[in-house]
């Protein structure tokens, strides 16, 4: 039995943040119905990245929306809205990621949905919460990374701002929304009350940086400084970083410099009897020069037996060839209603020894209308 079996989630959200949360809930067993605009649907369907179009729609959409149903309905029409309300009355969770005010204008605010479904868990993601000066700004990942100073943590000192190369704030907000929904569902199961769960990308980006922001608050306001080369964490000393070798790259986490000096036979490091934070640029420089003289495996074979925290640096091709990856069975094949099938990843959580897999691909726009109307609206 999956933990969320028999739960019905009605999801108005688009793009990544909200849909990534409902994907997780779908994998945990919930039935997720996407509410989409007839004709175009979730904007993510046409948000092409890398020019990769799969079965007429973007690869991103297929990744995020597998294991869901689609109900196309123009809820700005009053009679359609009435139909939709019949469906919402049966839902355990109603979720959206419109900007503040949009659901209110449609007539589907928390209070309005609560009026037809008193114990509903109503969940939303915004960019910035309801702050009057910010609520109308676009809640877009790169803009949130930029606003919250996240771009000053990666890359080297002279690189300028370096964004994290995927939509990390969207995914964090999605993860936090899923947490809030699950916690509220638990309260609903034990106390029979609904909830209004709200997450914003701004708060999620703060939470992600809780260590560095707290350090900044308590450190007399000193800004993080990245190392000149091989930076992997602005607040950590040498050797923490990725280094070029003769045939690839080597990641070195924490480790005592004198121990490394002797293991790597790097005499130039002997001048540093301890891991002085202020000397990390010099130490990294020496390590970088020295590590280029041999292959990655040569270093790993010395460092791993000595329990030094290190690893090779892989790309997807190399990773997929590793047994350590293969044993996880992390990819799965899913199939759409029209027979189109594609490979993607699975849910990262394992419960009672079983992975949550599902062969159900993403829905075509409105593919489940007939079934949903029969089941919830005309019934």
């Amino acid at each position, binding site marked *: *039995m999956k933990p969320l079996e028999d739960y019905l989630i009605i999801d108005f959200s688009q793009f990544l943040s909200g849909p990534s949360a409902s994907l997780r809930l779908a994998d*945990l067993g919930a039935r997720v119905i996407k509410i989409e605009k007839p004709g175009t649907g979730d904007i993510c369907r046409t948000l092409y*990245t*890398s*020019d*990769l179009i799969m079965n007429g729609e973007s*690869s*991103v959409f297929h*990744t*995020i929306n597998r294991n869901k149903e689609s109900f196309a309905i123009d809820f700005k029409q009053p009679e359609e809205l009435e139909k939709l309300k019949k469906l919402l009355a049966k839902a355990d969770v109603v979720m959206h990621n419109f900007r503040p005010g949009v659901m209110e204008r449609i007539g589907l605010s928390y209070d309005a949905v609560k009026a037809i479904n008193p114990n509903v868990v109503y969940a939303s993601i915004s960019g910035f919460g309801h702050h009057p000066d910010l609520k109308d700004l676009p809640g*877009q990942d*790169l*803009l949130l*990374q*930029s606003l919250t*100073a996240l*771009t000053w943590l*990666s890359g080297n000192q002279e*690189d*300028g701002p*370096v*964004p994290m190369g995927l939509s990390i704030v969207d*995914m*964090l*907000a999605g993860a936090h929304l899923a947490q809030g929904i*699950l*916690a509220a569902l*638990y309260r609903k199961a034990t106390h029979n009350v609904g*909830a209004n*769960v*709200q*997450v914003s990308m701004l*708060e999620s980006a703060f939470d992600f940086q809780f*260590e*560095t922001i*707290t*350090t900044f608050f*308590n*450190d007399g306001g*000193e*800004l993080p400084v990245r190392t000149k080369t091989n930076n992997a*964490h602005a*607040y950590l000393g040498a050797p923490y970083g*990725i280094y070029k070798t003769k045939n690839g790259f080597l*990641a*070195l986490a924490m480790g005592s410099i004198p121990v490394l000096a002797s293991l790597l036979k790097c005499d130039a490091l002997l001048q540093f009897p301890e891991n002085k934070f202020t000397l990390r640029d010099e130490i990294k420089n020496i390590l970088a020069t020295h590590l280029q003289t041999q292959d990655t495996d040569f270093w790993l074979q010395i460092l791993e037996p000595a329990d030094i*925290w*290190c*690893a*090779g640096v892989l790309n997807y091709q190399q990773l997929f060839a590793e*047994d350590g990856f293969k*044993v*996880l069975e*992390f990819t799965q094949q899913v199939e759409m209603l029209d027979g189109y099938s*594609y490979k*993607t*990843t699975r*849910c*990262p*959580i394992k419960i009672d020894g079983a992975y949550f897999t599902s062969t159900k691909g993403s829905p075509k726009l409105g593919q489940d209308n007939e079934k949903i109307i029969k089941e919830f609206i005309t019934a």
Partner: protein
Amino acid sequence: MKPLEGLVVLEFCQFLAGPSAGLKLADLGARVIKIERPVKGEACRQLSIKDLFVDESSLLFHTINRNKESFAADLKNPDDLVLIKKLIAKADIMTHNFRPGVMEKIGLDFNEALTINPKIIYGTITGYGTIGPWAKKPGQDLLLQSLSGLSWLSGRKSQEPVPFGLAVADLMCGNHFVQGILAALLKRAKTGKGVLVEVSLLESVLDVQFEAITSFLNDGGQLPERGDVKGSAHAFLSAPYGVYQTQDGYISLAMGDLLFIGNVLEVDLSQYSDKHQWFASRDEIRELLSEKLKTQTTDHWLYFLQKEGIWSGKVLNYEELGSQPFVNELQLKQTVQNAAGEKLVTTRSPIQLDGAVLLSTKAAPKVGEDNLKIHEQFLSE
């Protein structure tokens, strides 16, 4: 009431991934008790950044472990183990991130825990799962970023691999752990039985890359290729997506209609009228935009861009961010206080419930700070 009120969590976890999950559960209302070895306590207490300490434990530890209690016990001491087992009998959830095999040796693996408490939710975090050649490797964040392909997504093509400058594998894994534990609570509410929840840093850091990996899997095994202009922000996205230098700082441009953006910025991009070029020629296009954006201040450009609804924004640092009025207006900070009255300012839970932020003034505990109270409440009969 907070959703997890009344639930007791025993946290055997150390460092970041597990304790960050414990913090989320605590903020949602659970009572989280850290089980720590006597005197020294959890290893993270000694792991500092910038040598910042508060009452003998690192500021880092304080950030991750506020709103929790501490029970000091030596798992290798038979008398203490008896106490721990009594605690497990009264708990709802227990979590640990020992390497595979350690809890088995102590006699506190899932099956043992079930015999003590048939309704226990037992959560584990590993680096790489429990089987296969990587199972015993150290589960350290940078190593996970490096092995999982993540380091090829940020920075520029001509650069070396660029890791994320934060413990993203740990933190995402902590988030997934919370989801798994909460789902397990729902399962237990239906079945009345204990539940085993397992997550790993590797699966979590791969999940973060689900879009990039799905593209790789369906695109003939093509590797993601980063742009090569300064401020490149996403291997898969077309121009103008990225960060640009201005006369007095930096500006970000997200996705949008390139030709329209060109018009607003008065950059001639007419030769790129075919949308496919926005991706194929993104470096060229971003160079053209860079040249133009350098010539005026950030505010100048934002005025024109935002007036037209173009997705753009300022790049702030912590100092600039900290002085934004919204930090206080949205209560993004909170002050916590320990038993000795010492205070520190930190962040809060990112989740709001029923219109209220989840706050707590309770600072991280000293090692064994709550032994007496816990003895009285749970262990005295």
